[in-house]
């Protein structure tokens, strides 16, 4: 088998027209240049559909193959075999299998691996990091959405001391602080990574039931105790990084859409976890679980939410009836 090729010596850009043959494991270059070299010392570039293949000599000289078909036959004769990666790349069947495997890896990572990894990383990070992250958030909120509480001081103190007297379902509860605020966002309660649990006057008035209020606080303490905000932070950073990798060089807006949508599932997951924490806390203290369910019944009445099934996937919290059923059905 004789293959026509261009020979470049690596010292000048001059093209030498040559032919290549192989006999007894020695490549023989003939024509404008004559050179012999054992094929074991030669390096062949990977097979591509249209690009000319190159055969490199140890000293930097190389052949650029002109007759691709003859060269393929020559390689076949000499027993050259493409690497595994090249064989994967050159076959549609394998490429599509790689595509399916990639989707599987991404989905599994999203559903299981990333939440697990986030949990692991959070466990390693000291709580002080959470505190550092949350520092200043309350000040910021105070300036923009919250106002000083107008609740009776005795009432607020009573709620706090009653909650503090309860046993937590997990040991080593972190330091936390319950703060009351009047808000423009209506009945609500939320926890900050700094360990501050903010309760609005409106939710105290809406529930009008101290047992139910214990449920709200237990749920929020669940967020603090299980360090949900740190986990969310890690998870959403990872998703943002992956989305940027995939879409970043196309459009920044495009890269943010998956981040927001995918993050919602994690948000609902931690809400369920906090509900479970509250359920366990009620059980540990012998409080009636109906009171916990009352929180969501009252919120449901208030919202009279008209969620369509599709809206549920776009929501940051699980549906109220689902949460009530879970609380009442839990053992």
């Amino acid at each position, binding site marked *: 088998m004789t293959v026509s090729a261009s020979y470049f010596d690596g010292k000048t850009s001059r093209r030498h027209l040559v032919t290549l043959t192989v006999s007894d494991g020695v490549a023989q270059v003939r024509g404008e240049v004559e050179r012999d070299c054992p094929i074991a010392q030669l390096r062949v570039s990977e097979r591509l559909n249209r690009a000319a293949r190159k055969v490199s000599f140890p000293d930097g000289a190389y052949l650029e193959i002109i007759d691709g078909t003859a060269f393929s036959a020559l390689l076949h004769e000499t027993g050259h075999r493409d690497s595994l990666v090249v064989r994967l790349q050159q*076959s549609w069947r394998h490429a599509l299998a790689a595509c399916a495997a990639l989707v599987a890896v991404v989905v599994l990572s999203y559903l299981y691996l990333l939440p697990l990894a986030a949990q692991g990383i959070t466990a390693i990070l000291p709580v002080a990091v959470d505190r550092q992250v949350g520092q200043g958030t309350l000040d910021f909120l105070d300036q923009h959405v919250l106002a000083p509480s107008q609740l009776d001081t005795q009432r607020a103190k009573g709620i706090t001391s009653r909650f503090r007297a309860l046993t937590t379902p997990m040991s080593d509860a972190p330091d936390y602080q319950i703060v009351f605020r009047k808000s423009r966002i209506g009945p609500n309660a939320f926890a900050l990574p700094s360990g501050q649990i903010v309760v609005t006057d409106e939710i105290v008035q809406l529930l009008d039931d101290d047992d139910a209020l214990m449920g709200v606080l237990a749920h929020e303490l669940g967020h603090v105790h299980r360090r949900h905000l740190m986990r969310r932070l890690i998870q959403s950073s990872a998703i943002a990084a992956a989305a940027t990798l995939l879409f970043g060089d196309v459009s920044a807006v*495009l890269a943010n859409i998956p981040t927001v949508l995918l993050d919602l599932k994690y948000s609902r997951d931690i809400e369920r976890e906090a509900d479970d924490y509250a359920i366990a806390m009620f059980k540990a203290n012998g409080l009636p679980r109906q009171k916990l369910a009352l929180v969501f019944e009252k919120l449901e009445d208030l919202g009279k939410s008209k969620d369509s099934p599709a809206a549920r996937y776009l929501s940051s919290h699980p549906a109220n009836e689902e949460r009530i059923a879970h609380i009442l059905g839990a053992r």
Partner: protein
Amino acid sequence: MNDHPDLPESSSPSPSAPAGSSNFATVLRDSADHSAPQAFSFSGRGAEYFRIWIVNLLLSVVTLGIYSAWAKVRRLRYFYDNTSVAGASFDYHGNPVSILKGRILAVVLLVAYQVAGYLNILLGLLAALALMLASPWLIWRSLQFKLYNTSYRGIRFGFRGSFGGAFKNFLLWPLMSGVSLGLLMPMAAQRFKRFQHNEARFGATHFSFHGSVGAFYLAFAAGIGGWIAGSVLIVVGFGGVALFQSVQSGAGSIAAFGLMLFALYAWSFLIIPLWITLLQNLVWNNTRLGEHRFESRMRWGRTAIILLTNVLGIAFTLGLFTPFAQIRMMRYRIESVTLLPAGSLDDFIASSESPGSATGEGLGDLLDFDLSM
């Protein structure tokens, strides 16, 4: 598994054979006429690159990014092997292991930088300052590595430059452009490209750059000026509509605002191709290799169509169109360029120069410097 690795190629009507014989014909022709224009050609195709891309992506994901260095080498080899001019193609010689080392160092430095910023503002500022001062060195080393590992006809490219030059052109001028609120930006861009192309060489032969500062000001005026003028028109136009509607009904103004954002976004996507087109033409029409010249003839309309369809394709296929998009844009950019030889292309000689370090390249990758030549 396929025991006959070459079977698919030889059973298909073998695209390389006709391409090969036409190369052969060009060879014979250019030995007769040394100054015939030589168009760059790019034989990469989206379907083939898609397979390389997806395998690269899968292996990079399952190896937690370690394979990404090998993926980079395979990607660049694909691009270089498929780019040819005057009957010979380019070659990439980067070593995946050194690229991996550079990337690991880059990740460590970036994490340290982030942590420093979290722990202490002063420490974060110091780290940012250190990174800023180091960036010209990184860009410089990255250029050296990239060019040293590129070859054509067996001759390696190279990049000389000095740290002083890199500091002035990659840091001081961009800073001046910032201080002057962008007024000096075209000047800084000209200095950047001038340094980049003047210091580049092919073997022992130097590239030179002849783009004037005035030409850069014109290109920037068209690109940025056009973007600002269009955006102002859109905002004023929609502002008027919104005002009119809010007098009639409050709800309409939100819809108008949404439409305005969409129009601004669409306008930006029309201006970016203008920008790409003007800059590539400006840079390559003013670059010489020894006495050989280049000509770039990109057109705004074509660039805009490719870019817009690429963005839509990527969005609607959840990213699977990305490799096709890259190939389409790359093919158009490369095939717009023609080499205008001043004489025979056989007389370049190699130069003996040390290779650049891959650390700069790895860091440059992660810090996202666009140094495409």
